[in-house]
């Protein structure tokens, strides 16, 4: 596995017209660690995550990957497309809706980036794609189109597509939120394996169990603010901030029957 990246966010702000989606975000993501972001929907978790690979353009502040500013060369001076693509190459992303390409098989989905972006020969890309699919337990599904796969399998293909690029950082945007409950486990277990290998991971999630057991640090967001970043135990079991307490209460109520 290639070296793991670190991420530093300093005073990051993001606006949608008048609405401020991110307010002065300061966050350090250490290399090889798992950071989970929790909080109510609309609190800015996904926006924050998407600023890390500049899929969402932040308006001020800094996001640095291994010390390198992403998105801008200088304040108000956008980075060139080529430079940005180079940086994105080593940042894997997994989406809530999987976003597999339906006109390609599982293996083609995984090989596409290797061929187009990494410029690897078709034969090598196919071999690496098969390896990545085997790693997520889908060696037998490589010739299937996404429409033939369950949600859990599709999300695992999406993870294989990201890890085949040998990223140093992985971003997960609610990777299990679109899945039927019985399919959540298989995706989380792949993510757990990845975490065990020392991948830097940032995970926006509603899976408190995953956050509690796998995360090295948990950030709680509300209304565009990063309210608190601390150990999973401090955030999930002994929260001091009333906003976190209230969020967790709602969460427990919903999940008790």
């Amino acid at each position, binding site marked *: 596995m290639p070296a793991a990246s670190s991420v530093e966010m300093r005073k990051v702000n993001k606006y949608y017209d008048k609405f401020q989606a991110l307010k002065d975000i300061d966050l350090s993501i250490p290399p090889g660690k798992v950071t989970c972001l929790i909080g109510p929907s609309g609190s800015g978790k996904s926006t924050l995550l998407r600023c890390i690979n500049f899929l969402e353009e932040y308006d001020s502040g800094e996001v640095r990957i291994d010390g390198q500013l992403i998105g801008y060369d200088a304040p108000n001076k956008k980075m060139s497309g080529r430079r940005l693509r180079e940086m994105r190459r080593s940042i894997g992303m997994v989406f809530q809706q999987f976003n597999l390409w339906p006109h390609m098989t599982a293996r083609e989905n995984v090989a596409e980036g290797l061929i*187009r972006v990494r410029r690897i020969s078709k034969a090598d890309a196919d071999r690496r794609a098969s390896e990545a699919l085997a790693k997520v337990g889908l060696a037998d599904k490589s010739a299937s189109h996404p429409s033939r796969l369950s949600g859990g399998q599709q999300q695992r293909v999406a993870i294989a597509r990201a890890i085949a*690029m040998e990223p140093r950082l992985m971003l997960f945007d609610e990777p299990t939120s679109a899945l039927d409950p019985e399919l959540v486990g298989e995706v989380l277990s792949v993510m757990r394996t990845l975490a065990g290998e020392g991948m830097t991971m940032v995970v926006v999630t509603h899976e408190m169990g995953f956050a509690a057991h796998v995360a090295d640090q948990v950030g709680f967001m509300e209304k565009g603010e990063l309210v608190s970043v601390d150990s999973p135990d401090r955030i999930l079991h002994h929260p001091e901030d009333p906003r976190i307490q209230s969020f967790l209460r709602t969460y427990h109520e919903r999940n008790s029957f």
Partner: protein
Amino acid sequence: MFSLAVFFQSFGPLFWAARYTLLISVLGIGLGIVIGTLICAARLSPYPPLRRFAAIWVSFLRGVPLLVQLLVFYYALPVIGLDVPAMVAAVVTVGICASAYISEIWRGAIAALPKGQAEAAVAIGMTPVDVWTRVILPQAVTLSLPALINELILLVKASSLVSVVGILEITRASQAQAATTFRPLEVYIAAACIYLLINLCLAALGRYLEHRTAV
């Protein structure tokens, strides 16, 4: 009385005329696809003047009947000193008219794709060209196939309008035939059969293509 003999005899000349119908339709849709793709690209481009030009192009060509466009084009060209054969004028007019509809077909198909499709490609570092040629367009083409076949069938029928600039396609040939045989009913029913036959073939082609590209 309906004369089967006249009915069947009409097919020979009308089939011969059908090659113009087909030629105009196929060249027309080909030209329409090329221009329509450019217009669609302009419509989706980040440059306001291009976008405005494309919007005007589409609304003008959709808003004026093809028959009027044909006549204007046909009589306007000599005025500006261009003496082109009627066939060229017809194909160009049909193609330009079709481009307006085709650009809207593309635009609709592209808009129908989930935003995440392109995002996934952008996130792994694909270039804009790759994002378009590998992810967006292949899906947009599949999505728009039914609408494109529909447009082609409409063009085959609309090609009857080019009879006004003197091209001896199916409709004009049947008019001539009707005038010489004095059996309009038999001749026009034969013409209808040929149009129907062509369009049934196109519909079958469409089903085949849709089946082949289905995932």
